[in-house]
């Protein structure tokens, strides 16, 4: 019996002021998968994410979660089903890191008791490796630290939402942009383990090597359309890379000079601080 897809988009398009940003998108996400969207600047990756998360209303097409369209799902219930980690968040007020993470627990998590909420908070802070920053004021943190706090918040939201929705989607919009190597892999490892526990992960990444290491499925976008979709091996071909990304580098080729290279390796856990 075919269960409705956790997340499905049909013939999705979005245009503003006569300009088409995204066109003809067909997309599906199932629990346990990590899908990574890559593409050059202006390809429409962020727009696609915003359409899928419900932030933007498509000009054409539908987005459904478990068969229900976005219009049918009230915001509070949607918050239990999907969480979005934004690219960068600047706060005007000096919330502490713990308070920021705790915001993810409000709303959906208000049904949980105090002990459960504290437990979720502690675990999320730990997974994002920001426990030691819990009492620091968020605006004083570095860009990378702030990103990790946002990740903790998103983890809190998903954990709280699990009490309401069994299958969830995690959206990550360039989560590794300001992170150092250790935290890049730590975050993506955490995302993968979430996928292992039944969530669907959809992430935008700039780094093709990270995408190759972590993605089960890569989606290449260009000019608002998905031009390639499949496993990393299938997608990352020389001619596609050259055409879409505009660089003549060869896939899998070791550079001829003595330039060293360092590729990310998924699942090889970094030593965490605590």
């Amino acid at each position: 019996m075919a269960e409705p897809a956790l997340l499905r988009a049909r013939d999705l398009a979005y245009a503003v002021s006569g300009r088409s940003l995204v066109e003809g998108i067909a997309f599906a996400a199932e629990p346990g998968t990590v899908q990574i969207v890559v593409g050059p600047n202006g390809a429409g990756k962020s727009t696609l994410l915003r359409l899928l998360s419900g932030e933007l209303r498509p000009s054409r097409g539908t987005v459904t979660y478990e068969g229900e369209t976005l219009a049918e799902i009230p915001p509070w219930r949607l918050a239990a089903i999907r969480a979005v980690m934004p690219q960068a968040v600047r706060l005007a007020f000096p919330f502490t890191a713990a308070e920021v993470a705790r915001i993810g627990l409000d709303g959906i998590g208000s049904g949980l008791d105090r002990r459960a909420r504290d437990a979720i908070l502690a675990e999320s802070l730990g997974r994002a490796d920001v426990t030691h920053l819990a009492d620091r004021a968020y605006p004083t943190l570095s860009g990378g630290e702030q990103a990790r706090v946002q990740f903790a918040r998103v983890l809190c939201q998903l954990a709280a939402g699990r009490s309401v929705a069994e299958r969830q989607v995690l959206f990550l919009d360039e989560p590794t942009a300001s992170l150092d190597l250790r935290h890049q892999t730590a975050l993506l490892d955490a995302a993968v383990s979430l996928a292992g526990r039944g969530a669907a992960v959809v992430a935008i990444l700039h780094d093709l090597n990270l995408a190759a290491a972590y993605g089960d499925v890569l989606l290449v976008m260009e000019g608002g359309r998905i031009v390639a979709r499949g496993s990393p091996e299938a997608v990352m071909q020389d001619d596609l890379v050259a055409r879409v990304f505009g660089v003549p580098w060869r896939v899998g080729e070791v550079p001829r000079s003595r330039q060293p290279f360092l590729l990310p390796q998924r699942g090889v856990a970094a030593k965490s601080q605590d």
Partner: protein
Amino acid sequence: MRRVSRRRTGFHLGGAQTGFAIFAGLVLLTGLAILLSLGLGAVRIPPGRVLGILVGASDDPALARDALVILNIRLPRTLLGLLVGASLAVSGALMQGLFRNPLADPTLVGISAGSGLAAATVIVLGDRLRAAAGLPGPMPYPVLPVAAFLGGLATTVCLYRIATRAGRTSMATMLLAGIALAALAGAFTGLLVYASDDRQLRDLTFWSLGSLSGATWTKVAVTAPAILPVLALVPFLGRGLNALVLGEAEAFHLGIAVERLKRLVILLVAVAVGTGVAAAGVIGFVGLVVPHILRLGIGPEHRRLLPACALLGGALLVLADVVARLVAAPAELPIGLVTALVGAPVFLWLLLGRPTLSDG
């Protein structure tokens, strides 16, 4: 797993215990402000008699004047001060949360521009309009406050309409449109000022400096039903405002109905501040400074901040009124002067004391 401690560093003082202590302190401060406001004034009344009058134990006709001062002058004035002060401070916090900017104050929804223009119109043109309409006699007293309230409300509605497109309200547009509307209202007010005579100019100036003078039970009875419901509703907005601090998109992702929240906040602020302005004229700085002071003490969490603002705002305005009444007795300083004279230095001191605010 290390237990997450609640202790704060950096910007604010420590601990849940401190938070509780601060709340208790605010309640005490409010109580003190009420006591001072009832006990002090141009007329010397010993504390024992004050209590006696309040409790109703004193029917001595010889003390009729003192009873009148306490019950009909100081008590309504104190209550009005608490109401208006609370509404100003809470509205300031609401506006700062809505605009995600610590510099926002309640007047950003266009209220003082609109109500100022309405007040100027009534003060300068009122008699002429009445004559043209064939109505005899002087302007009835309630016309000015009602006009100020309606003027403020009208400007807010105007601003909201301008800033809202396809169901989405842009706070950035609202800010800019607010500046433009304020300039326009200011220009019309300026025209009226130019056309005014000396007496009208004085009246307008005093109105725009704010005063709790002439606070009667009638005024309290009219103001309370507008402000109290707003204060009661406000803690329920705390969760939404917390999420909004992260950004509108993020708040939506967290399940907040963002547009509805904005509409509600704007409406509540318009009603609360509009009523306050109608009752007491334009009183500045309370809405800007009180939330700042409190954020230093109890942090920016809105569910704590908003009730605390109500307490501190009310207490401070009542204390400012005590100063306004005593400093130049038997005359009175306009209360807006006191709040500015005290508020501005405090604000500067706060700015100097904290690490530089990041831009944007």
